[in-house]
């Protein structure tokens, strides 16, 4: 700890020495037409080429300079640059209203400007997702999806065919912190992973940080996916919609009071069940999902603003009236932004998040259900302090009350015992401080510390196991603090700017994770349960070091980067072979613990300008686990281990109406366990296994294509068409490989490969007015 204090103080020193007459320019950057705040717009000073800031997540910026005359320039991807000359003699406020560039085709003619964000930002492994690109890329059944687009980036792997789940740098799916307007989303998938919970129409901005996240983020080991919803247009009413093969979308936004408050409501519903009804065999079955996003904001005055946003999504499926399961997330976020002074910005958030599932089974007078729920109340206070043009701080505190109810049977007491499982309450807290400091023209440091805590809050009996054998138990009264874990998490990123086109970056970070997802199936399942730290389960810890070289070519037309990482993970949680995690009286007796390691190198080449844009990303990596009680305690390849992972994405603007896009994806088949022999017990063929995950599925590859047509712009109405084909050359990629008796020859066994999607066409009509 002393070391950190020393570090903090030594960083402050040079700032103090420089003291001279200085004033602050502050304000916000917005879209002129919609009034939406622009996140990450670049604010620079022409006379001081090394000085610049970015607008924060609410579009606010603050820049402190010695008095003098400056030309302030503001730029943002896809918007016209603006500049203003200012004679700085006192604290000044400049609010920017940027206009979108016209037709994308014009982009070729517009003189190129510096867009070297990838080279100049300090945070490593950060990927911003361009929402307008998402709309054009081909995707399964035409359901555009932010989670599927990020899988095309280096270091991010898809959880499987058509799946919205993803793995980042060797982390498992639950080690990604997925935030929707700051609220954690515990199950970000619909229909067992084929679609994500995020309706693209409602999303403004998405950003992925692969492990080396700044100190304001915490709680998951592998990555942060920070998704922000649109605020809603505060000037005019707009309706956006889309009719697709499996779902339709509609969103409405507009002002409540002109330029003072606005709202956005977006909804989506699938109609796969309509097709099911058409078939005699499935007519009694139900299968659909829906979701709603809503957001409203209100400007109290020029320095204070309130935001309220919410999400509600649900999946429902059932067989007649005998079996049904439904699951979904609910989130709500209330935020209060306040510009306390030209240099101080405050944000206070109150966040609610809930995920639950319910299985109902009835018939013959028997009726019971199985429920599980995770519910969070979360309070966050953050201050951003723009100390000088060279130094800015983020200081924050966060407390989350978790209530986790493990899966529990509820039924007629004559048929079932009521299970004595109750919701376990815990408190996750964090305090952090982070500083971005420009040491010199070339060297920038981003460093900070997050101290995270997790306390068991009682109300249940906590059993202690040693190798699955009960050794002790602790009865904690409700509200009484039990075991508390405290973990300091240092974060450091260093950027050395070689020149305008190239930089070298290095980073180290420690992350801890207090909630763990218990999943014993090979696919994502709505019944996968979250469990918190306890006396047996200790916080997971990951230490990641990474280094990278970033280089742009031809006036930033081409971006190139190479990043390498090594990550060590402690206290990884798995469970015993064949463990019944839903019905075990105490699932903690079924758990196993171990360590993990992941390392790799990621390449990205991107063309950002011109008629033809796109990227090529390639990752070479290894991910292993060593769990006490699995694979004779030896290292084995984790299921997310893929040696090679290649994505090529191309988009071509043919003319002002037509554009085409294509993806090509190729990766090493998943690490799986195949039989090493066979035998029979009681006439049933069984397979013998040796080392875990010692085999591979065949190499996966596919090509998707799509075409977009922008309809004629009518006075108010504009329509567009998107048609596409997923897996255009019909590769039969392995979804699973089953080993079974040959149905035609019982003396033989066979391997059967199941492939899911080939030549899947899609057509979507989108409209706005």
């Amino acid at each position, binding site marked *: 700890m002393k070391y950190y204090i020393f570090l903090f103080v030594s960083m402050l020193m040079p700032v103090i020495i420089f003291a001279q007459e200085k004033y602050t320019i502050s304000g916000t950057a917005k879209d002129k037409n919609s009034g939406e705040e622009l996140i990450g717009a670049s604010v620079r000073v022409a006379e001081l080429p090394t000085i610049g800031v970015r607008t924060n997540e609410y579009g606010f910026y603050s820049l402190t300079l010695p008095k003098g005359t400056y030309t302030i320039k503001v730029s943002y991807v896809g918007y016209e640059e603006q500049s203003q000359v200012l004679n700085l003699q006192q604290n000044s406020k400049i609010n920017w209203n940027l206009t979108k560039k016209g037709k994308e085709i014009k982009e070729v003619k517009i003189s190129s400007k510096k867009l070297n964000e990838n080279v100049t930002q300090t945070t490593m492994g950060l990927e911003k997702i361009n929402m307008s690109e998402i709309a054009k890329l081909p995707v399964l059944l035409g359901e555009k999806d932010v989670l599927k687009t990020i899988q095309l980036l280096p270091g991010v792997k898809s959880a499987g065919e058509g799946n919205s789940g993803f793995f980042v740098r060797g982390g498992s799916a639950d080690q990604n912190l997925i935030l929707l307007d700051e609220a954690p989303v515990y199950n970000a998938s619909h229909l067992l992973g084929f679609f994500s919970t995020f309706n693209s129409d409602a999303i403004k901005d998405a950003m992925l940080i692969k492990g080396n996240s700044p100190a304001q983020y915490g709680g998951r080991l592998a990555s942060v996916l920070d998704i922000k919803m649109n605020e809603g247009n505060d000037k005019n009413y707009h309706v956006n919609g889309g009719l697709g093969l499996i779902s339709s979308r509609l969103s409405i936004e507009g002002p409540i009071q002109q330029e003072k408050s606005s709202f956005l409501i977006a909804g989506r519903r699938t109609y796969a069940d309509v097709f099911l009804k058409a078939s005699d065999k499935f007519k009694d079955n139900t299968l659909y999902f829906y979701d709603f996003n809503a957001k409203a904001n209100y400007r109290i005055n020029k320095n204070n603003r309130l935001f309220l946003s919410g999400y509600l999504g649900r999946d429902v499926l059932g067989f007649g009236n005998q079996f049904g399961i439904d699951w979904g997330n609910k989130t709500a976020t209330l935020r209060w932004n306040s510009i306390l002074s030209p240099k101080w910005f405050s944000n206070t958030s109150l966040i609610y998040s809930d995920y639950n599932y319910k299985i109902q089974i009835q018939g013959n007078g028997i009726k019971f259900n199985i429920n599980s729920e995770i519910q969070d109340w979360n309070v966050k206070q953050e201050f951003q302090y723009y100390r000088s043009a060279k130094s800015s701080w983020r200081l924050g505190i966060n407390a989350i009350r978790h209530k986790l109810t493990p899966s529990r049977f509820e039924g007629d007491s004559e048929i079932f015992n009521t299970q004595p499982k109750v919701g376990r309450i815990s408190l996750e807290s964090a305090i952090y401080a982070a500083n971005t400091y420009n040491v010199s023209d070339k060297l920038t440091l981003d460093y900070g510390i997050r101290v995270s805590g997790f306390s068991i809050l009682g109300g249940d009996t906590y059993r202690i196991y040693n190798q699955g054998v009960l050794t002790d138990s602790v009865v904690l009264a409700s509200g009484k603090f039990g075991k508390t874990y405290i973990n300091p998490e240092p974060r450091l990123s260093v950027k050395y700017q070689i020149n305008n086109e190239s930089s070298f970056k290095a980073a180290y970070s420690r992350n801890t994770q207090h909630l763990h997802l218990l999943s014993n199936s090979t696919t994502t399942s709505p019944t996968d349960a979250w469990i918190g730290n306890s006396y047996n389960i200790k916080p997971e810890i990951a230490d990641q070091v990474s280094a990278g070289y970033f280089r742009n070519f031809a006036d930033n037309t081409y971006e190139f980067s190479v990043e390498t990482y090594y990550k060590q993970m402690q206290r990884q949680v798995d469970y015993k072979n064949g463990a019944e995690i839903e019905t*075990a009286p105490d699932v903690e007796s079924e758990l196993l613990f171990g360590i993990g390691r992941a390392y790799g190198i990621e390449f990205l080449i991107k063309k950002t300008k011109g008629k033809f844009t796109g990227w090529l990303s390639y990752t070479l990596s290894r991910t292993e686990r060593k769990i006490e009680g699995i694979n004779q305690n030896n290292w084995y390849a984790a299921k997310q281990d893929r040696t090679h992972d290649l994505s090529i994405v191309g988009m071509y603007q043919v003319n002002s109406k037509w554009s085409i896009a294509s993806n090509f994806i190729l990766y090493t088949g998943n690490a799986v366990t195949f039989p090493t022999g066979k035998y029979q017990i009681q006439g049933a063929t069984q397979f013998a296994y040796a080392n875990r995950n010692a085999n591979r599925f065949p190499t996966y590859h596919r090509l998707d294509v799509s075409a977009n047509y922008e309809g004629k712009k009518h006075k108010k109405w504009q329509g567009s068409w998107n048609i596409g084909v997923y897996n255009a050359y019909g590769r039969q990629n392995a*979804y699973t490989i089953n080993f079974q*008796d040959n149905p035609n020859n019982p*003396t033989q066994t066979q391997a059967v490969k199941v492939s899911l999607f080939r030549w899947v066409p899609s057509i979507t009509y989108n409209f706005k007015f």
Partner: protein
Amino acid sequence: MNAIRKYSLGIICMAISFVSCEKVIDINLNDQDPQIVVEGNITNQAGPYTVSLTKTVNFSSSNEFPPVQQAIVKISDGTITEQLTEVSPGLYQTQQIVGTEGKTYVLLIETGGKTITAQSTMPAAVNLDSITFIQSAFASQTNPEYIPIPHFKDPATPGNFYRFKQRVNDTIDKSFLVDSDVLINGLAYQRPIFSQGVSMRAGDSLHLEFQCIDKPLYTYFTAINANASTTPANPTSNVVGALGFFSAHTTQLMHVKVE
């Protein structure tokens, strides 16, 4: 519970089966040296009881499993220890031992310089009272299929484990159908037996064997079933030094017409 998971996955799979396809493929597998497989049973019915010993074969071989001959196979009930006689290649039979509820049986095998041991306790018998049927929601409603529900009273003390073996007409269900009293301790058991191994329609005859087994066996069979949906592994077994299982269980047969 695994059945529930399977069915919820099932409905999604059915929906996507419009676009999925299956293909038999050639695949390279790492073969392993043959391992010994034990299958031994002792019941509360009159003997003789048998222990069969076979060896694993490679996946690509035909389903003929070489017997392990001339092994020394002994079973002890704590009082007497009996050496079994090989009545046909790889099949060993008892002469004296009498299966008794509550007794623990130890199996000891010596073959090719290897020692294999196993232990199993025969629980107290629970009486199966009756079998009723419900119509399956998972099949076509115009040509209905039925699911049996066994009825019995679970004893008041927790820790009962059950196994059901079904035969419909002449078709043997090869599924391993097991359940525990975790959720129903002391209550009237009336849970349907979901099985993908057989289907039954009105008029079929069902032969149901009801077994009471001990916990290690229950865990063994659940682990086998879990291999279908999780990363597969050899199930944890009560046999040390070989694959397979050794089961001391009670047994009761019931024969009813499906309706």
